[in-house]
């Protein structure tokens, strides 16, 4: 009997897009680092599998803001310049380190990687990574899940159905726009489950979602197969939707800690030290001379990293790859052991185990993450465990056990507490107030045309950007907290300007046009998505 391992990779990037590369070099760098370390390596890996005839199956979430950025001509040209600067820097590093054999080897490796990234991005993939993901989805290797428009933490809006609808609708529209297909699954940002979201998802034709372990194991009905089989939500029987239902998968409890917890394998001393970057140690002027940065800019990472996680140990890529192989094998063995144990309890039913992997751990936080994933997929392919996609595991939805999920999230202490604490709780009054106003505006101006529609659509976009869970997360984590607060405030202020302009019937078209050009996300935005459903 087949045992199913479902690997689900979640890729998200806040909408950080700045034409001014000098002042926002550090913030822009987040995406460029992610492209080089995660998304290009993933696409390369998929092609390697294809060339070898290895039929892999993965589930993948690429958030709308990430897709919008990957599809943005400005971002593409900035990324190419970003790579060219690293190549220029690397060529100087190779000269500088000529007498240090070990460091030189690592510098050459980083330089080769930057050159290959440039070649892959521009020539092999024609600057279009989304097309590559869509290609593998079309081939049946990837099951792409949609997610919310701006990765909002839905439990904070659980009492505002219009906001849930808008976030889901924009997420689905974006999915169709970028991938040309309707998704079967919908990923709740931070796995934030709030009662009622199942009705919204079903009303948009979604077949399944993924929740944290608490939402299933703490439900009133004990799940017969634990986390090893999807369940379905009890829907309100008064609606016709009760004829169908939303399937829920529960993520494996251990996976996040295995990879990035306190004693995770990604902290192994042989792995690359991602925080020790050559650009953080060299004299400032040499960074300017190598064209990595300009005068007046902060130090930004070069991604030339020569050391491992041990104290001053020099990185050995062969040793790291061997360790990644071992870690992939032990991870797979642990998951297989779980599936074997579950199989004994489940009789005729095939067990499935869904592991959610944050894309940041695949290359960004953990340099060898993509190597580990490749080894893991190869290990699974050579075993009696099937790598599966979620939709295929559901089967007959009516055969799934019905439960009423418990509220929960895979964030903070399991309820998303990080997104509402003393560091960021000042934000929520603004997002909720503006959300109320947007719902009201969409009801008051349903048939507007011309300038007012432009204003309303801009207001809708700015509100959605303010709703992004990214900002409160960054503030909580201390990742550019001032920047995150500034971006949040700018979005709220823009919405207030829209609101006041509609009230006073006066607007600065210069301001409107400039902001429309700056925030290109959701060019199809229709503010009526916030309308109360009548």
């Amino acid at each position, binding site marked *: 009997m087949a045992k199913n391992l479902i690997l689900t990779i979640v890729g998200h990037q806040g909408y950080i897009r700045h034409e001014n590369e000098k002042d926002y070099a550090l913030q822009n760098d987040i995406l460029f680092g992610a492209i080089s370390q995660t998304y290009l390596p993933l696409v390369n890996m998929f092609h390697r599998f294809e060339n070898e005839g290895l039929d892999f199956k993965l589930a993948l979430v690429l958030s709308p803001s990430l897709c919008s950025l990957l599809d943005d001509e400005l971002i593409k040209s900035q990324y190419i310049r970003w790579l060219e600067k690293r190549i220029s820097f690397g060529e100087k590093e190779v000269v500088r380190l000529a007498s240090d054999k070990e460091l030189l080897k690592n510098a050459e490796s980083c330089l080769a990687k930057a050159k290959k990234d440039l070649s892959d991005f521009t020539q092999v993939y024609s600057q279009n990574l989304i097309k590559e993901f869509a290609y593998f989805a079309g081939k049946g290797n990837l099951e792409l899940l949609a997610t919310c428009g701006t990765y909002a933490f839905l439990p*904070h809006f659980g*009492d505002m159905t219009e906001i849930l609808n808008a976030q889901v609708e924009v997420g689905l529209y974006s999915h169709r726009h970028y991938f040309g297909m309707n998704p079967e699954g919908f990923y709740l940002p931070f796995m934030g489950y709030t*009662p009622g979201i199942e009705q919204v998802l079903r009303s948009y034709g979604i077949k399944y979602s993924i929740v944290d*372990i*608490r939402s299933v*194991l*703490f439900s*009133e009905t*004990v*799940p*017969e*197969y*634990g*986390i*090893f089989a999807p369940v379905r939500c009890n829907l309100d029987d008064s609606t016709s939707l009760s004829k169908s239902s939303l399937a829920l998968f*529960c993520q*494996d*409890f*251990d996976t996040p800690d295995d990879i990035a917890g306190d004693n995770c394998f990604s902290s192994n001393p042989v792995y690359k030290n991602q925080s020790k970057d050559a650009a953080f140690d060299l004299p400032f002027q040499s960074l300017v001379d190598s064209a990595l940065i300009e005068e007046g800019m902060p130090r930004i990472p070069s991604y030339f990293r020569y050391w491992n996680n041990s104290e001053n140990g020099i990185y050995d890529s062969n040793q790291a790859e061997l360790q990644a192989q071992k870690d992939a094998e032990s991870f797979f063995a642990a998951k297989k052991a*779980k599936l074997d*144990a*579950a199989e*004994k*309890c*489940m009789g005729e039913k095939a067990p499935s185990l869904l592991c959610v992997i944050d894309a940041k751990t695949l290359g960004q936080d953990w340099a060898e993450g993509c190597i580990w994933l490749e080894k893991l997929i190869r290990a699974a392919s050579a075993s009696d465990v099937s790598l599966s996609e979620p939709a295929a595991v559901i089967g007959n939805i009516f055969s799934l056990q019905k439960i009423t999920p*418990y*509220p929960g999230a895979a964030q*903070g*202490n*399991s*309820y*998303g*507490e990080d997104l*509402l604490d003393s560091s960021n*709780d*000042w934000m*929520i*009054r*603004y997002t909720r*107030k503006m959300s109320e106003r947007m719902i009201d505006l969409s009801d008051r101006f349903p048939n*507007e*045309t*011309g*300038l*007012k529609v432009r204003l309303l659509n801009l207001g809708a976009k700015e509100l959605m950007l303010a709703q992004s869970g990214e900002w409160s997360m960054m503030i909580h984590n201390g990742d550019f907290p001032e920047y995150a607060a500034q971006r949040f*405030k*700018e979005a*709220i*202020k823009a919405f*207030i*300007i829209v609101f006041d*302009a509609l009230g*006073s*019937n*006066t*607007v*600065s*078209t*210069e*301001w409107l046009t400039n902001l429309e050009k700056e925030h290109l996300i959701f060019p199809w935005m229709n503010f009526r998505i916030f309308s109360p459903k009548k």
Partner: protein
Amino acid sequence: MEQKILNLAYLETLSSADLIALADDYGIDIPDNLNRRFIIGELLEVSQEFAQPAPKAAIMNENGEVPSSSAELPSSFNETEISVILRNPAWAFVYWDISVEGLKKISESSRFRNLVLRVSYFESEESSNPVEYYDLQVALSDRAQYVLLEAGRKFLRVDLVAFFTDGSCDSLTISKKITLPKTPAILAKAFPGQEVEVPEILEVSGMKHLLKSHYEKYRQSFEE
């Protein structure tokens, strides 16, 4: 579709099938077996709506000033309202706003004593009588507060109440009633140092780890 003004005399001449087809043209959803008088009534109503001249939209002034980019967010929206967000099953986050006029009224009153958050629990969403409530004193300048929730309660509402020296009070605003998650049955059996027996499939699923981590994070907060 070409819209023409319909009148009763004309509609009366149409067959029921034609009336239904016409209603369909006008986007009127007609349930099965509906009386033709009703259909005619609906058609006349819709037809009159179409006949109304569209309200002339006010032309927007496009030459407003470019807004200042440095303006801070407003600290108040000049409205008196209160909201409650469940942070987790043990804590709620309460935030409120008081209008300038409302604030002036209470702060300048010689009888004003204090401001409190009245935390009330209810058995049902419809119930107007709380099963229990308590007051948390807040300062006039406060605008947010975390509230520890009692375990085993079903619905929560928080009121912002001003108390006066003569014993009277004024409920300034009340929150929506929010549903509190029911304590999972398994947690009632989970005590520190006590092994909880769970089916093997739940043990492999991680139930014991979950209970342990839950107790470490929330301790007694969820007990009934």
